[in-house]
């Protein structure tokens, strides 16, 4: 629950913006430019801030950013690691999921891949309270909807 002070000083929100930006490579150009420019936000400040905070990730992996723009032209943002589907596609080496999940298998990956993905996802803000096992189960579920089969070992 937010403290009383936070509630009293909460600034009015103008908009919520969702973007995908490659880590360490934010530039005041599309996709960042038009999306933030509309709300008169300081592009340079966002790019510098975002680049500095994503230095610890491998360069150019697409990060999901959610920016909260306030009515006084200031903003805050949170950075999330790429979606589970993106990691699964990379691990399985495919471009897109299967067109008929459940019937057609697009590719296979091993439990080790799932474990690695779960470890990265654990540092995400909304996954921190989940046990590693629970995260793995959720990733396996996503893999099933994409038509990616999970095996113990690759034969």
């Amino acid at each position, binding site marked *: 629950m937010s403290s009383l002070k936070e509630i009293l000083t909460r600034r009015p929100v103008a908009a919520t913006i969702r973007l995908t930006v490659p880590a360490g490579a934010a530039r005041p150009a599309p996709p960042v430019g038009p999306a933030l420019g509309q709300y008169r936000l300081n592009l340079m400040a966002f*790019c510098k801030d975002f680049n*500095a905070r994503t230095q610890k990730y491998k360069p150019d992996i697409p990060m999901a950013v959610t920016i909260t723009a306030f009515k006084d032209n200031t903003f805050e943002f949170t950075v999330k690691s790429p979606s589970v589907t993106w990691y699964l596609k990379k691990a399985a080496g495919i471009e897109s999921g299967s067109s008929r999940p459940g019937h057609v298998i697009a590719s296979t990956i091993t439990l080790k891949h799932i474990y690695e993905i779960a470890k990265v996802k654990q540092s995400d803000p909304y996954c921190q309270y989940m046990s590693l096992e629970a995260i793995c189960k959720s990733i396996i579920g996503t893999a099933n909807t994409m038509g990616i089969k999970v095996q113990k070992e690759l034969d």
Partner: protein
Amino acid sequence: MLMASLRNLLFRRVYTCSTTFYIPSLQLVRPTSALLPSLSTLGHFLPAPRISGQAKEWRCLSPLLASFSTSSEASTNEASASSYLSVRIRCRKDVADMLSDALLCFGASSASMDEPDDCDSTDEISINSIFTECQDVGACISNAAGSIGLKDMPSYVVTMGEHCDWIKKTQESFHPVKISEDLWIVPEWRTPPDAQATNIILNPGLAFGTGDHPTTKLCLVLLYSLIKGGEFFLDYGTGSGILGIAALKLGAALSVGVDVDPQAIRSALQNAALNNVGPQEMQLCLVDSMGNPLSAVGTTDGNVKGQSSHGIRLVAEKEKFDIVMANILLNPLMEMADHIVSYAKPGAVVGVSGILSEQLPQIEGRYMQFLEGMSVSEMDGWACLSGRKRITKYS
């Protein structure tokens, strides 16, 4: 009346056969959003709106005429760099979050939602989504809606946006910045508040360095305290050229600006011209990510690809500069530490910034072997580290 699932199947199959079909419940009214005043409405019926160069001429005609265009357009690929597609989608409030995320997965560049006013009693909310020009908006939206289980295709309106619109909007937010008592950074389109002070006129364009970021301020304050007159200054990662120009205005003899981005070099050239800085005083050099010079330009040469052998020679000379500053990012600072410090004379001052306070220990550890007498200044969570280059080797 088709069943929802059958209809979705129909969309997908029809799309793969690439025939044209109507998108039901399409809004034909001009969007009244105050955020996009200068766009024209092109209501589209086709799933693949390939807005070609012809679209530009249509804007002069009445919007009603344009909104009934159902002919397939000739695909000319010009004008793809100067415009984008802005789509306004209406959907229910409770599915808006999921739909935004789904849109991003299926190819949108961004998805923004305006915060609804409390007095707004409708159940619906608008999502503004931006796509690159050659994308298939209809297919993306239908895939996104299908993936979260929406039965109906949400209604949407496609408009064409020009990049100059948002560029102009962001420029409006630049104001003159005061660095110290007599040093101001003023955007090109505003008048300096204090005509007596040293004013640096800037037009940053799409390059980094407007003067109001804490790291730029930290570097400028450092420069202000260091420059006595006649120094050689190297700005590694020059961006808009702000540090180089500031050094010259404060009394340095020569500034060299280095960057990996050709856009930055272009921007720095422009700004040097705005501040009446000649080619003898400021040299700019484009380098690759390992620091090897690719080309160099004098400030009278507007073309980045122009060769200036004097500039490359200057940059390639080690131990030539009295002050070296690098306001970039943590990773390049760590990798190129040797390279950056090698340009400084022994005993010269080296300053690095563009790092968060939490990244400071890493930088200190890396630069400890090169610099002595290190001092740190911090502002708003950002830090600037400076020190003198060791004359004798670190043991």
